[in-house]
């Protein structure tokens, strides 16, 4: 059974068509790269799946059900910018997440924070941008969701933080769930991907297994991407 299905999905902002007739079926148990240059429609697709935008036409099903309270229960979403209230302390945020998400594992969150040497009594506003991003990732990965959607999780972070993020994603990945990672920084991330989706001008350009593509073309995903998207 497919975990996420998109049927003839289209979205425009005013007259600009951002997503054009997207069809997708994503199974469980995979790490999937949603790859495309800036402005290709990655974030729009992600927002539609999360119910933050409404499609102009087409439908999205998660576990065969439409986007709504039930889909929100099983999707853990990391947006590309911060979405936390900076006036809250880390432990308040943990309480907030565990109040609303039944699948949130408090202990795991505290464990991950401890590794980062983050004091749970600190207010978010007192933290650096990088720290805030890590807290956000910890909160998102401490859920036992069916689908994790991470929008540009490694955009604009230093190499050490990037390694930490990739490690956290890998060690928290389980067979029952899938992870969609959107990014344009492919070489940093391709090693951990099962499957890749290339998205170009609002359309799915290619969807395949990462290792198969490498074998077929004798090139890295990054190189294949660069060739396909040459200006």
């Amino acid at each position: 059974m497919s975990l996420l299905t998109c049927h003839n999905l289209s979205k425009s902002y005013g007259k600009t068509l951002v997503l054009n007739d997207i069809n997708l079926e994503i199974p469980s148990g995979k790490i999937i790269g949603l790859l495309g240059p800036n402005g290709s429609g990655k974030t729009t697709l992600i927002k539609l799946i999360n119910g933050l935008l409404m499609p102009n036409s087409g439908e999205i099903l998660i576990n065969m059900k439409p986007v709504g309270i039930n889909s929100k229960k099983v999707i853990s979403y990391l947006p590309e910018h911060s979405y936390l209230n900076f006036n809250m302390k880390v432990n308040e945020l943990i309480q907030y997440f565990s109040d609303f998400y039944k699948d949130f594992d408090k202990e795991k969150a505290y464990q991950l924070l401890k590794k980062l040497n983050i004091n749970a009594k600190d207010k978010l506003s007192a933290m650096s941008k990088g720290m805030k991003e890590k807290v956000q990732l910890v909160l998102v990965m401490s859920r036992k969701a069916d689908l994790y959607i991470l929008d540009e999780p490694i955009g604009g972070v230093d190499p050490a933080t990037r390694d930490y993020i990739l490690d956290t994603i890998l060690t928290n990945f389980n067979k029952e769930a899938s992870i969609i990672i959107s990014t344009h920084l492919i070489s940093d991330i391709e090693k951990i991907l099962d499957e890749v989706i290339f998205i170009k001008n609002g359309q799915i350009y290619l969807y395949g297994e990462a290792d198969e593509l490498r074998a077929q073309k004798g090139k890295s995903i990054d190189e294949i991407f660069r060739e396909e998207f040459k200006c």
Partner: protein
Amino acid sequence: MLKKVLKYDLQSMGKSLFPLYAALIIMAIILRLLNLVADKLVLIEIIYGFMLLLFVLLMVGALFYTFFIAIKRYYKNLFSNEGYLTHTLPVSASSLLVSKTISAFVYLIATSIVMILALMIAIDTSQIFEILKQGIEIMALSMKVSNSTIIIFSILFIILGYMSYVLMVYAGISLGQIHNNNKLVFSVVWSIVLYYISQIISIVMLGVMVVLINPELIDMINQNSPAPDEMNQIIIFSFITSLILIGIYYIISHNRLKHLNLQ
């Protein structure tokens, strides 16, 4: 889930409003103490005058500030970056909206109560209450109802007024989100548009009532001589108008929350 949403809305607004309440009460106490010794020293009298001015300003500002905090919470929690989290919680649009409405209501009442308390602490209010009481009695007599009816209706009137303004701005902000750019500007524009529409609706409703229910009303308004029955009708009618407006605002906001456009 409503309970949990409400808990965080109340908490968050409380963080901004409790300092205001503390300031009002502390200032009221200082005023009372200064008053006791004011006539003994010119300097203290000057300080007292200054403090009194500040107190009045704070009192005037308190309700506006409460409105502002309620509206800010609505905008920030639902339509700023924070909205990305709020709207990916497994919570229905109506829970979010009802919680925002209740929390605004709770704090507007709380602010009003604190204001009255502060006033009672700051100055000798027995005279004010005496005047108020006389006013109520005169109204009760002229409208042929009991004193308590007047009090209850006045309070209801104030609350409905509060809430219709809060919900009007909520709806205005919600409508502002339809636009793909300048959402904040359009939120203000839509709030103003809704204000004028509500004025028009009120007038139309009045007209409808005059024509359908009691043609004599128009004479009364012209002659400016309130008769008890007509007065009651007008009051009940304006209640109904407020309720209808609140209903319309709620439906608009709810509809927008169900069709998000977070960009």
